[in-house]
């Protein structure tokens, strides 16, 4: 109950009142209540919102059902089996809500809400004579199947159930409206009870709010049922179909800014907000489709408001990363990490605007321009891959916005010039990692080595650095092969490598695709030492490569083996902090070193922002300049991947501590001492 303030309560109470009224008359009150709840309580779990919603509507529905039952001869023969089937299926539906991941549920709710609203407005005129038919065995089956289906729907979601039921009884059993409404109420009570029977014991409801809303809902339904009974079937039909004068004066819920004008905007779903309200004003008697559009738009807008992030904040951080496309396996952990970053730095609120560049340079540049021009960001983090980061340099330099790249190539920050003045990066340079491998090779008497890498910027970057350093150290490179990320076979390349009888093989790939050459080599009987790059450092690689990767060496950021670092190493604590946070959010073993680059970028920011804040206000060129200067002055900052010591010439600032050699042993990463 904490966190629900009184204006919110008032708004929800009014929504519940109105929903109760609608529910009693035609059903579909949930179409008002659910968006209202989602809007007012953005942080609650969907299940909690549904639970609260159900609780508040069950009393209203029962009240209506009771009033109907007293006045209308209830057709129990059909209603009862439907109610029983609906009850059991509804319970299952409620279970499904809890069991589904919320990330999946939200889009689903949006879609279903729109669909239910569209349905509510699409219905056409249908019969008014009570002519009960279908009383045989088949109708019994219909009652079971359809009642069950609607029951599941109500347990799972809810809005529109009332009208679906009315429709069911009219269509399949030949009831007139009054009887159909009455029967529908009874079944609806059953479904609501079933859902509550699941939600309440599992703690998925807010008792105080639910009680308040229930009271209002009952009040509304009392009004509705009263009017329906007094004016008979005709009134119900009118509420259903007539687009004429609004029967009720406009009620404006201040908090929700809902324009509750019935009649013109629609029959039961007068939910609209913001600019959409003008579409729904009573004087605009728009046609049927227009109404659907208007109300759907209203719903979308409402939902948009409901799901929108808080927009008032001070420091804006733009993030562009490759969450889709070929580099997705690198970009996704980064995106996940951004979600964990602190939302305040030095008491200032921080906003992260995350954009996906689909591993495409044009999009990365477009995103950068957008972040600078539209979002007025103070700093840009990204992108995931080298070409994208290189392409962004011109844009950020022009705008005077500092940028922290999460791509590996040294070309991003070297040679230092007027443009790279604004550019920093957090991942270790390829050269640094390559040196580690070459050192390890020399120590293990490797004389000849074969290289096989991605046919993209990653494989190319590694080849350039590695071949340079290997040459200096007198290691002979006997093969230079390429393969594509999505290749199904690397037999040709592997055979060529085998023919060279190289002492060792270095595979320059990232993520699971790097496992393919290794598995092929093993399969063809290769016995030499195998090296991978830090690009493979995630759990999926071990999963796919399995036993074929035993004994493989790779250089990596210390975060990969944080727990194995000696306690004296200051990086251990910083790295473990990140690992802990990440795994708490995304599950055990989900951490990858790439996400830590984003984490380190935020560490750099947290270090530089307080000083910059003293000099200027966020959102100003002065602040960006101060932030840049602050970043350049980073000294002895311990982060997950190493210790930063920046200088005007070195915008990375990592030393030897930023990399360790790791060996795959027993299906996990082992630090090589």
């Amino acid at each position, binding site marked *: 109950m904490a966190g629900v303030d009184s204006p919110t309560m008032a708004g929800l109470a009014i929504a519940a009142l109105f929903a109760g009224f609608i529910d009693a008359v035609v059903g579909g009150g949930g179409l008002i209540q659910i968006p209202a709840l989602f809007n007012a309580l953005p942080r609650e779990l969907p299940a909690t919102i549904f639970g609260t919603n159900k609780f508040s509507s069950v009393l209203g529905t029962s009240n209506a059902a009771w009033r109907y039952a007293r006045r209308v001869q209830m057709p129990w023969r059909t209603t009862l089996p439907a109610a029983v089937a609906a009850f059991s299926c509804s319970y299952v539906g409620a279970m499904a809500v809890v069991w589904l991941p919320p990330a999946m549920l939200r889009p689903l709710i949006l879609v279903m809400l729109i669909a239910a609203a569209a349905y509510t407005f699409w219905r056409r005129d249908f019969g008014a004579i009570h002519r009960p038919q279908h009383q045989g065995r088949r109708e019994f089956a219909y009652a079971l199947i359809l009642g069950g289906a609607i029951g599941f729907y109500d347990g799972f979601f809810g809005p529109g159930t009332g009208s679906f039921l009315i429709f069911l009884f009219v269509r399949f059993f030949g009831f007139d409206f009054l009887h159909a409404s009455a029967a529908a109420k009874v079944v609806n009570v059953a479904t609501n009870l079933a859902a509550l029977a699941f939600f309440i014991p599992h703690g998925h409801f807010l008792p105080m709010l639910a009680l308040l809303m229930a009271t209002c809902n009952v009040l509304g339904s009392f009004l509705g049922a009263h009017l329906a009974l007094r004016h008979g079937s005709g009134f119900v039909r009118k509420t259903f179909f007539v687009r004429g004068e609004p029967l009720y004066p406009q009620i404006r819920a201040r908090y929700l800014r809902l324009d509750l004008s019935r009649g013109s905007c629609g029959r039961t779903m007068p939910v609209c907000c913001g600019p959409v309200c003008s579409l729904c004003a009573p004087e605009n008697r728009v046609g049927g489709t227009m109404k659907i559009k208007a109300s759907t738009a209203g719903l979308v807008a409402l939902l948009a408001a409901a799901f929108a992030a808080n927009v008032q904040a001070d420091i804006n951080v733009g993030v562009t990363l490759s969450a889709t496309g070929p580099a997705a396996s690198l970009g996704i952990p980064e995106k996940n990490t951004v979600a964990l970053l602190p939302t305040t730095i030095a008491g200032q609120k921080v906003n992260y605007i995350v954009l996906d560049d689909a591993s495409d340079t044009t999009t990365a540049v477009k995103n950068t321009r957008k972040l600078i021009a539209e979002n007025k960001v103070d700093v840009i983090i990204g992108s995931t891959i080298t070409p994208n980061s290189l392409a962004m340099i011109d844009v950020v330099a022009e705008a005077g916005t500092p940028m922290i790249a999460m791509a590996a190539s040294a070309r991003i920050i070297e040679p230092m010039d007027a443009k790279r003045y604004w550019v920093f990066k957090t991942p270790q340079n390829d050269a640094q990692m390559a040196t580690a491998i070459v050192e390890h090779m020399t120590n293990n008497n490797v004389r000849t080595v074969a290289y096989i890498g991605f046919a993209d910027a990653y494989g190319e970057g590694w080849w350039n650095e590695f071949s340079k350093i290997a040459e200096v150290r007198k290691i002979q490179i006997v093969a230079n092969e390429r393969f594509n990320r999505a290749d199904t*076979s690397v037999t040709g390349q592997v055979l060529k490598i085998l023919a060279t009888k190289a002492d060792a093989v270095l595979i320059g790939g990232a993520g699971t695709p790097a496992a393919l050459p290794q598995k092929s080599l093993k399969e063809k009987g290769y016995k030499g030492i195998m090296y991978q790059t830090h690009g493979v450092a995630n759990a999926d690689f071990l999963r796919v490569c399995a036993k074929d990767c035993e004994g493989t060496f790779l250089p990596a950021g210390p975060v990969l083996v944080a727990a194995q670092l000696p306690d004296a190493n200051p990086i251990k604590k910083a790295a473990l902090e990140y690992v802990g946070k990440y795994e708490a959010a995304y599950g055990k073993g989900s951490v990858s070193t790439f996400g830590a680059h984003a984490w380190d970028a935020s560490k750099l920011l947290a270090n530089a922002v307080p000083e910059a804040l003293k000099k200027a206000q966020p959102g100003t060129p002065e602040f960006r300049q101060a932030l840049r200067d602050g970043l350049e002055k980073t000294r002895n900052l311990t982060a997950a991947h190493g210790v930063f010591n920046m200088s005007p010439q070195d915008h990375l600032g990592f030393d030897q501590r930023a990399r360790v050699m790791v060996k795959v042993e027993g299906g996990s990463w082992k630090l090589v001492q």
Partner: protein
Amino acid sequence: MDLQIALLLGQDGVTNGAIYALLALALVLVFAVTRVIFIPQGEFVAFGALTLASLQAGRLPGTVWLLLAMGTLIALIEGAAALRKRHFRRIPLILLLNCGAPLLLAGALVAVSSASLPLLVQVFLALLLVVPLGPMIYRLAYQPVAEASVLVLLIVSVAVHVTLIGIGLLFFGAEGSRTPSFTEVSFEVGDVLLQGQTLLVLVASVLLIIALYFFFERTIYGKALRATAMNRTGARLMGISGSLAGMLSFTLAASIGAFSGILISPITTIYYDSGFLIGLKGFVGAIIGGLASYPVAAAGAILVGLLESYSSFWASAFKEVIVFTLIIPVLLWRSLTTRHVEEE
């Protein structure tokens, strides 16, 4: 390059080529029957393999959700149509077929821990999850524009492909998966070690091709498809419904795709976006067959596989350049030898 290497490369090329051949057959079939150039064919390969991998990992595959969502959508569309025509009797059947069956499958998957099932059952389940997507996609994306031009159908294919790639990433993540081999057997032929699984791919492909041959030659549905492929209007006049033929060809295409994916996932890693390139190469094979001849399409696909294998040995960085450049003269030759009758 000695003989052994040449043989190994040949074997590799033929194995990959066999998969391309299967896809090529599916593409030829779909095109002949519906005039759709089915770019998303490759996605079935990825979905098939990744669904199986999820099942083996004991996770609920994302394809279940796709199946449920598409089933519900179809039920809504069909249901609305039935309501409009006042065919109320059909509604329960529509519901049962499009929502009930997927729900049942989903329920079964939730109830049973899929990781512990025998491999063949898992394969069967994976096929059960992926294959219905074929006709569903046809129903939702293609049937409403079945009469449009080949270009429009092609662009619809592109849109479907884009959507499926996005869904694949959402369901299966960016990282790839492998499935365990069906067989651990390996043979030594001369100096060459032959993996049982590779052989299995070949044998299964050949068997599938033969099965398809019998399907087309001996069964009424196969004949209906062939009739539709030859003359759409004529077939319709003979009572063969165009949409039924479309559904059927998409079902076959989806089965072939998913099956191919399941076949190769033990010998390579499959990613959510692997399908496109595999499909593209099958497509090249199909075009070499003029999108009309099944045996030539299969031969073309094997040719692509071999080209790929040998060029990856000689100049791996330029593999795609070589494969796709060499395809052009082949295309030219095919184009000149195929009598192209202008459409009236």
